[in-house]
């Protein structure tokens, strides 16, 4: 009953399996976010000579949960001058795509958790662009100068890095001959190498663009607390704020999954079970993000924009052309 992916026609039990799969992914997503935040605080704390959260639960393991509960019982303040409807709606608009992209990430070889879409990679890129609306509208609806600048910058940044991100995938698609993420994993397993090797340039572009797309240091301009105080979510409180945070960390997880799938062979790997390999690769990505955050200062907004268009985009195009030419003449 678990194998609903090829079940035709779909029986009731298959459907139940599907719902269970979705619920499990939701639970995994929320769990990963909770403990990513915890791990981030711990790892960055360790890198800074601190011990990180340690008061709630053993080793502070319940810290993030305590934070969530705190946010849930916080008053929900909507500023008087804000555009109420959009203000309330913006976090939801931002959140939904962040969860939807998880539908196509192949977590392991055979499981009921992945939609086997033929347009998988494009689906991810297309949906992640919708989050920009939420961020932008959130900043606009707050009717606050910092929030508006933060929202606009955020949108401009995410737009700018969406392009190299999308183009860096093309090299992988060229090699695998499919947009389907499952096929890409299998093509890597067949070819015997992870695409990080032949697509190293593409991988670098992807990594930089992904970091920027996730609004993480050194590209965390939108929420630059030392300039814009907190960027687009300056006016958000309680659980609405939590949804913006949830969105960011879900994307961190999803982007890690995407990177593992496209460049690191997804769930393939020797000895260990597939899901564990996948988890290791995703965590490597997440750890790298923490590491960057502990080290880097923030890039300036004009440099940020020109970097995307003047460096990353040409590099991505170059990578694409080289891959295509090599593929055409080698095969």
């Amino acid at each position, binding site marked *: 009953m678990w194998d609903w992916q090829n079940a035709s026609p779909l029986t009731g039990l298959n459907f139940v399996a599907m719902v269970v799969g979705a619920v499990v992914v939701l639970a995994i997503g929320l769990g990963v976010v909770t403990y990513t935040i915890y791990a981030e605080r711990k790892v960055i704390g360790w890198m800074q000579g601190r011990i990180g959260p340690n008061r709630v639960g053993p080793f502070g393991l319940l810290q993030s949960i305590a934070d969530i509960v705190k946010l849930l019982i916080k008053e929900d303040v909507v500023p008087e001058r804000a555009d109420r409807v959009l203000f309330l709606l913006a976090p939801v608009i931002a959140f939904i795509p962040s969860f939807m992209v998880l539908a196509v990430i192949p977590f392991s070889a055979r499981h009921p958790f992945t939609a086997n879409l033929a347009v998988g990679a494009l689906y991810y890129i297309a949906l992640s*662009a919708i989050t920009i609306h939420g961020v932008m509208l959130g900043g606009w609806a707050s009717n606050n100068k910092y929030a508006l600048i933060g929202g*606009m910058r955020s949108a401009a940044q995410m737009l700018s890095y969406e392009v190299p991100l999308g183009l860096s995938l093309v090299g992988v698609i060229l090699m695998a001959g499919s947009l389907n993420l499952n096929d890409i994993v299998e093509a890597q397993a067949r070819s015997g190498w992870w695409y990080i090797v032949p697509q190293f340039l593409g991988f670098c572009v992807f990594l930089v663009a992904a970091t920027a797309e996730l609004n993480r240091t050194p590209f965390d301009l939108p929420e630059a607390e030392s300039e814009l105080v907190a960027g687009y979510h300056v006016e958000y409180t309680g659980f609405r704020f939590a949804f913006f945070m949830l969105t960011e960390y879900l994307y961190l997880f999803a982007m890690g999954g995407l990177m593992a799938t496209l460049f690191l062979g997804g769930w393939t790997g020797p000895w260990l079970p597939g899901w564990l390999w996948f988890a290791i690769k995703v965590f490597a990505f997440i750890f790298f993000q923490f590491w960057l955050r502990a080290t880097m200062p923030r890039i300036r907004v004009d440099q940020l924009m020109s970097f995307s268009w003047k460096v990353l985009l040409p590099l991505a195009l170059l990578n694409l052309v080289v891959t295509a030419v090599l593929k055409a003449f080698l095969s």
Partner: protein
Amino acid sequence: MLGLAWTPPMIAFLVISLLILVCAIMAISFRKVIYMALAIGGVFLGCAAVYILLGAEFVGAAQILIYAGAITILIMFAIMLTNHEAEEPPAAWSVRNIAAAVGCVLLGVTLYAVIRSQSWPHGAAGADVNQGQSNPVAVGLALFQHYTVPFELVSLLLIVALVGAVILAQERKEDE
């Protein structure tokens, strides 16, 4: 309703159509321009769902990427760069508006009559438009084997649009 087969795709289609129409009506009846932009995003997403329902996965994803993603953002930026609080005045029953409304309703009725009067093909059962490929691959093959010239014209169109829009939108340096 009128002898429709209540298959799951049909139900999905009805739900999606309802979403599209509600969003479309909202898109032209809200007063705040930014709400209109948001509602039109709903229409775009609904259309994407219709395409996917019809098996045109790639066009559906393209619709989300270009329309719901890029174009809606562009519209929002345009609103934020002009008059944020722009509002449509409440519908005034001017002659022009009434004429437009009557004309549109008449057009709709005529179109509906035409649609009803014809018998439409239902697609060859079992015909696979993708010829055994996955949809994006099939679209790619069609695009690059049969539509080479239009494809290159697209790049020309894009570059012309880019240049034109840059010239129009760029602020002159002396304003700084």
